[in-house]
């Protein structure tokens, strides 16, 4: 990303108050042209309110929104170059699929021929050529979603907002639809902003993700950087599974930092410098797949390991997840790829050794 380049969508100090409650609290955000950007958060985090402010359906209490350099803050929804796909699709029940999709074009006052052409094109893009005459209640969930997508894309908006686009679909359909969506976005080059509570969906779809909590962004970044370098306990815990351990900084120099971590068996040295000298208490975080679980004691002298007993495990086919109780009573989650069909599986009550590479430990300041 080029920092100098002017961003396509500029959100500056946006807030929305409902009474005294700040649903969105002084948020700044820049989104680039053609980006597929996700806003991820639990329900009530303010993500939908932010999306509605982008659409113009909600007026911000303060702050500005610029799209393509033009201030949109006070522009009503029907004059914005932005379209939204609603969570429940909001297809007009009294209009056919064709009329639903053509609605936006009719409001632009385009001629009948052009409208018919455009609708036919977009129907083929979403693979619903034969469905123009149907009414919304004669469509399946996946078809409704595609009609909603077509309807919101037909005006060729500068930005398409999608509110929980997959929430109403079942799991199988969700996966295939995700790829279709990315495909369409790539073909049209429209900037997509997706609001979702589903972290898996956000991870697979997005170029970048913003994680929202209590009206604020807690972290913005590419999916893998958020996963591998969460900046807080909240993000680490919110995205994927993770083990969190309390630790104290014992010494630090320009290259290394030493920690004392009871749960991980004592002294830990990580090749990272701690800038703030006042920080003493930290959290060390370690993802379950970054650990190796085995019945034999690791042979290599340098390897960090602790031992424990398998308390519980879940078999997921491709992998198994173990909950191991260590000797000082902590529970640690470890996942293991089931690589060999014939492997002797690890079971309950088995004595096991967990080992890891210290570079995989994430240091989270409290």
């Amino acid at each position, binding site marked *: 990303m080029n920092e100098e380049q002017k961003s396509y969508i500029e959100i500056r100090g946006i807030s929305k108050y409902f009474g005294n409650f700040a649903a969105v609290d002084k948020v700044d955000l820049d989104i680039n042209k053609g980006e597929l950007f996700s806003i991820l958060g639990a329900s009530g985090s303010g993500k939908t309110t932010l999306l509605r402010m982008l*659409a113009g359906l909600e007026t911000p209490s303060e702050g500005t929104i610029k799209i393509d350099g033009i201030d949109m803050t006070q522009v009503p929804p*029907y004059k914005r170059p932005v379209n*939204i796909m*609603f969570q429940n699709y*909001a297809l007009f*029940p009294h209009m056919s699929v064709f009329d639903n999709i053509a609605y936006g074009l009719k409001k632009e006052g385009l001629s009948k021929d052009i409208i018919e052409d455009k609708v036919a094109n977009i129907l083929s893009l979403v693979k619903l050529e034969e469905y123009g005459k149907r009414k919304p209640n004669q469509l399946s969930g996946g078809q409704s979603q595609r009609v909603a997508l077509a*309807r919101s894309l037909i005006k060729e908006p500068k930005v398409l907002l999608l509110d929980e686009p997959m929430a109403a679909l079942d799991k199988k359909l969700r996966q295939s639809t995700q790829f279709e969506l990315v495909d369409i976005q790539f073909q049209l080059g429209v900037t997509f902003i997706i609001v979702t509570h589903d972290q898996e969906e956000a991870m697979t779809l997005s170029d970048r993700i913003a994680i929202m909590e209590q009206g604020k962004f807690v972290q913005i970044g590419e999916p893998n950087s958020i996963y591998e370098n969460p900046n807080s306990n909240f993000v680490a815990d919110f995205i994927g599974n993770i083990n969190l351990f309390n630790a104290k900084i014992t010494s630090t120099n320009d290259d290394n930092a030493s920690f004392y971590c009871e749960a991980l068996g004592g002294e830990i040295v990580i090749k990272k410098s701690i800038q703030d000298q006042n920080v003493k208490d930290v959290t060390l975080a370690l993802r379950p797949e970054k650990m190796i679980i085995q019945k034999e004691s690791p042979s290599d002298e340098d390897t960090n390991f602790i031992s424990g007993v398998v308390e519980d495990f879940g078999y997921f086919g491709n992998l198994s997840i173990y909950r191991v109780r260590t000797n000082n009573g902590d529970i640690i989650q470890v996942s293991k790829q089931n690589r060999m069909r014939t492997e002797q599986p690890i079971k309950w009550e088995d004595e096991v050794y967990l080992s890891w590479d210290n570079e995989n430990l994430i240091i989270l300041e409290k």
Partner: protein
Amino acid sequence: MLNKRSKFIFSMLCFGFAFLYIPIALVVIYSFNDSKLVTIWGGWTLKWYVELFNNENILNAALLSFRIAAITATFATIFGTMAGLILARLKQFRGRMLFTGMIASPLVMPEVITGLSLLLLFVSLQDLIGWPSQRGMNTITIAHITFSMAYVAVIIQSRLTEINESLEEAAMDLGAKPARVIWDITLPIIFPAMISGWLLSFTLSLDDLVISSFVSGPGSTTLPMLIFSKVRLGVAPDINALATILIAIVTIGVCIAAAIINKKNKN
């Protein structure tokens, strides 16, 4: 096999529907009774119907009532739809509390009070500005619109709260101004509710005795007023015939409406 409780429920259902329908059925049957006395069956006849259609008073009253009901229903539906839209979609504006109160109150206000207060208004207005110069069809219609629109507003409001606002937002998002959204999206979707509102207003107006009695003037006797003055003195066979005709109209109407709704639901 029916258990004890089911038997109880079943007999209560039978009793309940008998209670509701026997009086109506008896009126229908006795409208064909040749004898003027209720207890005596004098054989089948249509003479009460003939008498009814030769009674110019009844026909005039019926005509007046139907005209009032049609005008009432139309205006009550227009005003009531506006009021319902405001209640459901405009969450805050100056005087909303008062408005909500004024919409809800006619529903629970005893008819005698509505009638009395409107008459006193009309008398005062006549005193002040000379209008209405005489009470009759116009004052009755105004009174009926006032309480009917409250019913329509409630129907429309409850229908609108069922409709997800995102439908209207979607239309706005696609380039329609708010006024246009109401025309393109809201009204078509609530149209069946508006029809129900119209029919309900029509029935309420056609049915009203007390309020009409207060606000009517000389020469404007509505059908219920005429019926009331007749049956006050006892059972009247030609009223049985009239009741039968009205019951038939209502039953057919409701059944047609139910069939239409049923068919729509199946689609």
